């Protein structure tokens, strides 16, 4: 291997040393993200615990179809990106670009479905917990809390998605300039970790928002 001759920063002994450190750093960052969303999940536990009936009543108004399709989309996106990582390791830059582009488009599809269609519907149905909130009656207050959680959770996840799209876009741009090789492609892996993590957050949010509160 000629990897000792690859460029690396002064504090590392080799490019491989640097690459593994960068990957470890990303994992640690994702651990902080776990705790960040963890606090949100604890909020869900509390909110549901104290307002169970209304909280679940709110969940009935979510759009199960879009939510499920979006979960499929994100799983597929995470899959196809990881295939791209495997391609660059085999030296196939062209397939990496294709895979990353597919992942990027799937991510965009998620955002369009989520915010362009689903949120717009929700607003049209006055499900946004504003002055004209649609759910009245005895359970209205608790249902409002559900939708506060819904909008907050999806918005935070959406922001992470946007960040991910920017990063994946950057990878596509660099890959098209042939900057990655089997020996040097750390950014591809690091961005992939983040992209899959955003998927993981959604996998947890999906039952919390769409399934648990939905009675048969």
């Amino acid at each position, binding site marked *: 291997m000629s990897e000792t001759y690859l460029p690396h920063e002064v504090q590392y002994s080799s490019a491989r040393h640097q690459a593994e450190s960068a990957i*470890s750093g990303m994992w640690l960052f994702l651990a902080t993200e776990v705790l960040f969303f963890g606090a949100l999940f604890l909020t869900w536990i509390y909110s549901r615990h104290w307002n169970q009936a209304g909280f679940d009543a709110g969940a009935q108004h979510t759009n199960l179809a879009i939510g499920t399709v979006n*979960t499929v989309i994100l799983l597929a996106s995470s899959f196809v990106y990881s295939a791209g990582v*495997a391609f660059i390791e085999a030296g196939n830059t062209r397939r990496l670009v294709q895979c990353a582009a597919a992942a990027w488009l799937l991510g965009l599809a998620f955002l369009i479905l989520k915010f362009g269609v689903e949120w717009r519907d929700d607003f049209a149905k006055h499900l946004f917990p504003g002055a004209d909130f649609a759910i009245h009656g005895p359970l209205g207050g608790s249902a409002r809390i559900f939708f506060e959680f819904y909008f907050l959770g999806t918005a935070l996840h959406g922001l992470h998605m946007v960040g991910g799209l920017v990063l994946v876009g950057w990878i596509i741009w660099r890959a098209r300039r042939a900057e990655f090789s089997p020996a040097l492609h750390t950014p591809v892996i690091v961005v992939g970790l983040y992209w899959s993590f955003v998927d*993981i957050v959604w*996998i947890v949010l999906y039952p919390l928002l769409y399934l648990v509160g939905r009675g048969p």
Partner: protein
Amino acid sequence: MTLRLRRLWLALALLLLAIEFGASFLPMDRAMRPLLLIPAVLMVATVGTVFMEVGRGPAVVRLFAVAGLLWLTILLGLGSLDPLTRTDYPVQSTSPQ
């Protein structure tokens, strides 16, 4: 990992999603419904091990992943201990006035 094997894992994740989706239509007690999260946890495990390849790279990667999950457990476990056990002593009623 071959692309073919990777596809199989995706299929498994989608199967789990289908199970989760289907199970949500079963009549279930409200207190039991959070069990729907079990397939979700398995999906998370799939994404983590297959797409993120937690098994590859230096050992410290596993350490960080486990640490994140362990601390999440602490937060959710000890955090929900209070509301789940918050029994208020009933304000007693027998008093000769």
